[in-house]
């Protein structure tokens, strides 16, 4: 049977599909993001969508959610062809989506965000009390802890995600799309989320779960569809497959999962932090309390901990985005406690930021403009204040080539139009190519697929071997155990333990991260 006939054919023993996306093709300038892709979601299943960054997963889901109109292909709900022209259509069809990058109004409260667009009103007056009851009931039922009156900008990423999930539930959605939900979560939060997804499934909701973390897919999904470079590779039953099979389907080759590195040979101290304290913006206590440690040339030190224990504030103070209230930071022998960001950068600090959209990129700049974000003042790229566009282009092409940054139109692609993983690669390329003395890498592989993680880990290890001091902040336990040479655990703004990753177990680390144990760190 020809593929296009699939749409009309009624097989006698047809499965009960909640959603069918048949032969979907979606093009962007210079790239076919989805090339004739078919995805069938059974009612009451958790269906994983697996693929490298830029494989077209988010695009396919955006088509289903009505954000993009496909050039070809049809969508069926409950066996009937439907038109999804915009997200309102999707909501009417009870399709809900948690986007990879949340779509929340920063200055609104949690509750306002949840009801935004579907407010209950009586003669034009908001019925807050009523909606609050419904939201809190949902929150309790599914164990989605939220603070309804906090503003979005003040709450953790994990809670923001719970708000997004509650948004879907509040709209009585039965098809739930999760676009890389675990990328931003702590291990505990990931477990919670999986439990929540299983509950949804038990209630008969159908779930599309995007991820490139194979362990999660194996743990929670019933079936898995794999995409590679916009093409459909196949759909498998999770119970019949292995991590190895999935990863080679996804990448097209076998991937090395474990970081390979020699033992570290640390030499002189590059970064010394002494008694750094940073006040909190939200509460009265200090976000970072009297933190001291050293990072030497040729070693990777990891600041581990559960999200929200002061890592972000510490890194902001270290990199100059925020100021410290007491303590001293020395880099390469110079006191940089109060130095400007530019000064720190010139002294050799590179920073892969936690939030790539807020800090790492100017999304409406082109890729090449982003690749020279701190370096446009270098004599190489400007003369008497005039930008040398030729040199910028050449440099961008070099980095794109060297770091395999994929995008629709090369150097002139708008950063906004690139997939998350390639945006991250661009930042990593920029920060590593600066030739730093100190590389501050905050969740450098957040949201990336195994191929890209392997690559970035290799780059970081190569930097270490080149004699760079690396300070890594990570929430991913695999990364915490694998990549660094030394682990510092941060709990409630303090360093509560120091470990050798080769000698500590994940369980032991977890106890320190949860605040159940602590040791006096000798420095």
């Amino acid at each position: 049977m020809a593929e296009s006939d699939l749409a009309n054919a009624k097989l006698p023993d047809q499965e009960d599909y909640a959603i069918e996306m048949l032969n979907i093709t979606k093009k962007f300038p210079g790239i076919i993001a989805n090339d004739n892709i078919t995805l069938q979601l059974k009612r009451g299943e958790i269906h994983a969508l697996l693929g490298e960054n830029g494989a077209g997963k988010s695009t396919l889901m955006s088509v289903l959610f009505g954000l993009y109109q496909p050039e070809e292909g049809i969508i069926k709900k409950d066996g009937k062809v439907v038109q999804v022209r915009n997200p309102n259509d999707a909501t009417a069809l009870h399709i809900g989506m948690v986007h990879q990058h949340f779509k929340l109004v920063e200055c609104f409260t949690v509750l306002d965000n949840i009801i935004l667009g579907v407010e209950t009103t009586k003669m034009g007056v908001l019925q807050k009390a009523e909606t609050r009851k419904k939201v809190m009931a949902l929150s309790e039922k599914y164990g989605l802890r939220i603070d309804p009156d906090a503003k979005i900008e003040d709450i953790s990423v994990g809670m923001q995600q719970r708000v997004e999930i509650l948004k879907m539930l509040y709209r009585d959605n039965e098809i739930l799309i999760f676009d890389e939900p675990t990328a931003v979560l702590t291990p505990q939060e990931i477990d919670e989320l999986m439990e929540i997804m299983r509950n949804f499934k038990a209630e008969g909701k159908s779930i599309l779960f995007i991820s490139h973390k194979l362990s999660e897919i194996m743990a929670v999904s019933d079936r898995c569809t794999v995409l590679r470079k916009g093409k459909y590779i196949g759909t498998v039953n999770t119970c019949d497959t292995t991590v190895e099979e999935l990863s080679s389907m996804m990448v097209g080759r076998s991937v090395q999962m474990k970081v390979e590195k020699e033992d570290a040979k640390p030499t002189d101290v590059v970064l010394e932090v002494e008694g750094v304290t940073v006040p909190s913006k939200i509460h009265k206590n200090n976000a970072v309390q009297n933190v001291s440690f050293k990072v030497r040339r040729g070693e990777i030190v990891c600041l581990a901990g559960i999200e929200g224990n002061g890592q972000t504030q510490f890194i902001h103070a270290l990199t100059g985005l925020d100021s410290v209230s007491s303590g001293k930071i020395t880099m390469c022998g110079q006191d940089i406690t109060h130095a400007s960001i530019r000064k720190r950068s010139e002294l050799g600090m590179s920073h892969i930021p936690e939030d790539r959209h807020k800090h790492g990129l100017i999304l409406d700049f082109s890729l090449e403009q982003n690749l020279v974000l701190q370096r446009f003042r270098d004599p190489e790229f400007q003369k008497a204040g005039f930008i040398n566009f030729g040199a910028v282009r050449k440099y961008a092409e070099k980095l794109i080539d060297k770091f395999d940054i994929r995008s629709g139109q090369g150097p002139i692609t708008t950063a906004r139009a690139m997939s998350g993983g390639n945006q991250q690669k661009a930042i990593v390329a920029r920060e590593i190519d600066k030739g730093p003395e100190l590389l501050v890498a905050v969740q450098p592989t957040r949201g990336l697929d195994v191929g890209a993680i392997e690559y970035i880990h290799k780059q970081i290890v190569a930097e270490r071997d080149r004699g760079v001091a690396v300070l890594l902040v990570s929430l991913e336990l695999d990364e915490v155990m694998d990549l660094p040479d030394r682990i510092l655990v941060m709990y409630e703004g303090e360093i509560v333990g120091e470990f050798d990753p080769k000698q500590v177990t994940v369980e032991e680390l977890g106890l320190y991260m949860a605040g159940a144990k602590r040791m006096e760190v000798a420095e």
Partner: protein
Amino acid sequence: MSRLKSNPGFISILASLASIVIGLLFGFILLLVLNAKNAPAGMANMLTNGIKDMGNVLYNAIPLIMVGLSVAFAFKVGCFNIGASGQYTMGAVFALFCALKWQLPWYVCLLAAILGGAVWGMFPGLFKSLFNVNEVITSIMMNWIGMNVSVLWVSNFSQMLAPNPDRTMALDAGNPSAILPKAGLDSLYSYLNIGIIIAVIVAVIMWVIIAKTTFGYELRACGLNKNGAIYAGINAKRNVVLSMVIAGALAGLGGGLYYLTGGGQFKLEKEILPMGFNGISVALLANSHPIGCIFSAIFISYLKLGGIAMQSQGYATEATDIVTAVIIYLAAFSLLLRLTIIKFFGKEKKEVAKQ
């Protein structure tokens, strides 16, 4: 052709043109409602009057270009400069003070105009970056302060006043050396002078600064993503102040250029000059592109002149004002139209692909 279609510059120009056409249509409908019989003739008058009088159109475009550039430049760092009026006023008064009180030549007066505007632009910039006060509020306040200061200032120096003390003295009586050189342009229109050349040159310089220099790169980065710019080591606070100072200087220069032609006398009225607000339309219609500001300013000047000509068709001044305002403001919707045009081309491509 298809390459042209995805060119953002081309799309911007097309959007501006389309919105102008829609604006004109609306204007025509309004004329029909007001007085159907004379509408065709009125419209024709409005559209053709400028052609006969291109010199006058250019003359009136000079300050428009400058305030348009002022708004457009501030917009690049994400500031909405609604204070161009006050800056324009201060530019005018600084220039006239140098001309009439101190009897200085025109080029010094122009520098004074730049200074006056820059100082007035600096305050909203400082308040924004030091105390995080919204520049819209402070620049509106600066408009009022500027208006009152100018009236107070000028009325305190009788040397500056004309025999009729509600306005400043005409420059050919007060200080002819402060009148901008004509450079032969007066053959087009008696008041036209090198001001138009200065305005065009300044527009080109602004374009070069924004598009080609590291400073422009910094400004745009701040405007598009302030946090990203700060992360990159760009001093966002300094850039906000600087760009507001420059925006003020541009508007101030506009005031200087207009009042040093010898044509206009500064009237001591307790009214905010509407010129600054015209700057917003000029910048919007040009999609904040400095070169575009030249053309949109000429277009708006052309319409205003045409509006005056409509009066001979029996339309009241207010009516012609409304019609031109409708056209200008609809024209300013070009931003909205841009999206429609992009969508339209997207569809067309799809159809081609299907065939």
